[in-house]
């Protein structure tokens, strides 16, 4: 199915199938809405395009998933951050899980029957992910996991976790598992965030038994698995997020009280230019992906452009709606605060610049 046809059919379907969220904007409601949207899109087939038949997908190019996510974000049907999580979780399972396991599990995720989470960061391993210390030790046919994860989005709602563990020293000693979150020994504690949406959690593993057939890839494949999901995050997820940010710029343009005043044109133009630049760059990345190119360190440029554009947009909101987010109960409050994290999550802006200097500019070691 070609992109134009897909988009036109999808829009027609969304016009007649109302999936608008309700008035409750709590995290519980957002997660329930996400499941509702996924279920409806899956049953109608939309959520299955761009995924291979091995996981009950309907095939077609991966770009269809970017088109679907853009439409969902533009219509505000699901919170884009948590909507996009399938874009890293499902490809990981397709690449690394046993085929039977992927075939059994991925449809549950795509179809909105389950949420999954990703257990990567640890209290002592943030930017330096490879230093992680959550241990997995073999015992008979099983592995026993002990340790702690943090920044695990939606852990408190999740049925499964893609978990990175330490099985030997060094980068080659990281091993990934697909863990059932209801296994005895797992404790989830949501973190309070400054923007009031407690989507992150700490997850504690206390002698948690994981069967060997839940290993993703082979022992030591975990670092490669983590590296392989970056291109997914930085292509399709970014396209979704950019679509979402355009809706927020539109919202600002509608809400500005002095619509006839030219004094804000510099700031509005700069915010628009930054978004447009991120969109053009992401578009080029989508095209390279479609041509079968391998995405690598150059996606750090996409990441810096997007994070910068996001913060600039919400800074502009605060400047052009003076007093609004400080003095009124408005969704801008939470969104402004959340935008502060854009240069931190998914690899800090400093780490991205390190990668650009080392890998793209070939400046050698620090």
């Amino acid at each position, binding site marked *: 199915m070609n992109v134009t046809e897909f988009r036109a059919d999808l829009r027609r379907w969304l016009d007649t199938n109302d999936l608008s969220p309700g008035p409750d904007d709590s995290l519980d409601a957002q997660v329930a809405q996400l499941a509702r949207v996924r279920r409806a899109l899956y049953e109608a087939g939309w959520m299955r395009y761009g995924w291979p038949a091995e996981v009950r997908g309907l095939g077609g190019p991966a770009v269809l998933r970017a088109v679907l996510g853009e439409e969902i974000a533009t219509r505000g049907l699901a919170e884009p951050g948590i909507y996009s999580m399938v874009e890293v979780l499902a490809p990981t399972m397709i690449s690394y899980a046993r085929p039977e396991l992927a075939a059994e599990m991925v449809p549950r995720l795509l179809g909105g029957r389950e949420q999954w989470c990703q257990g990567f960061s640890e209290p002592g391993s943030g930017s330096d992910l490879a230093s992680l210390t959550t241990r997995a030790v073999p015992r008979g046919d099983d592995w026993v996991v002990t340790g702690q994860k943090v920044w695990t989005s939606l852990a408190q709602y999740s049925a499964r976790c893609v978990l990175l563990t330490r099985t030997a020293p060094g980068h080659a000693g990281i091993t990934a598992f697909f863990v059932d979150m209801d296994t005895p020994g797992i404790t989830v504690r949501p973190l309070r965030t400054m923007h009031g949406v407690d989507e992150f959690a700490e997850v504690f593993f206390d002698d948690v038994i994981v069967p060997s057939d839940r290993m993703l890839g082979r022992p030591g494949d975990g670092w490669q698995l983590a590296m392989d999901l970056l291109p997914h995050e930085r292509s399709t997820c970014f396209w979704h997020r950019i679509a979402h940010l355009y809706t927020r710029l*539109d919202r600002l343009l509608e809400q500005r009280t002095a619509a006839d005043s030219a004094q804000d044109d510099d700031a509005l133009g*700069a915010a*628009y*230019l930054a978004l*447009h630049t991120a969109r053009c760059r992401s578009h080029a990345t989508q095209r390279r992906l479609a041509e079968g190119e391998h995405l690598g360190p150059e996606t750090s440029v996409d990441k*810096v452009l997007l994070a910068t554009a996001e913060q600039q947009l919400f800074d502009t909101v605060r400047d052009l709606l003076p007093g609004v987010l400080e003095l009124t109960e408005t969704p801008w409050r939470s969104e402004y605060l959340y935008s502060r994290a854009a240069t931190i999550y998914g690899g800090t802006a*400093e780490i991205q610049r390190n990668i*650009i200097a080392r890998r793209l500019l070939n400046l050698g*070691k620090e």
Partner: protein
Amino acid sequence: MDAAERDLLAETLRKTMAAATGPALDSALTDLGWADLLTEAPEVAVPLVFQLLGETGDHASLLNDVVLHAAGRPLGGTLPLPYTGGSWVVWERGGSGSPGVSLDGELPLRVSPVGDPIPLAAGRRALGWWLLGSGRAMLALARTHVLDRTQFGRPLASFQAVRHRLAETLVALDGAEATLVAADDDLGSLLAKAAAGRAALTAARHCQQVLGGIGFTAEHDLHRHVRRALVLDGLLGSARELTREAGALVREGRSAPRLVQL
């Protein structure tokens, strides 16, 4: 034009630009078939030629042709071009020998009292590619310098503050390039010229800083690219002016146009 033909053209252009600049380059490009390239394959010719002008630090009066072609007028002449701040300039061709009046004395620019409205999009795209090339030239100079020069017993390139400035420069340039590739209408061309102007000025700032004292001398090439970026940024609308214009447009339309589609 297929990829092999494009590579061949790029190679030929590089050689031509290595041998000549200014009026001599104009003549050489005329002999190479510039007029046919511009009228028959502008989507290939303009990015290639103008970016190379920036990278090599050469100049030629080709912007006239791009604007004349867009206006449906015969190539080969000159016409007043709008400059930031409400001025007009003429990009002389043929080489009278007198130096230009702008901050970049190499360019044969003179101020014109008046001018008529002209189509801007094609010229803005061409200048955008030129600015991008200038930015890449500055980045290349700065990169070489920080790898070669040692202080405190280590190369400048090993200091994170230096590395991050150059990384920021590459982000700005690559972002601008994406807007240029996507620019196919008036607004897209306006935004691309703004992004390219801003990226070239970002490159000038960071590269000048990491080049330190040597980059402030006229004996090092950096200043030529800095001057060129400053002057070209103002031609057919500066980054600042164009950004403001884009702001007015989205304010009045109450919506931000999504210009590129999957």
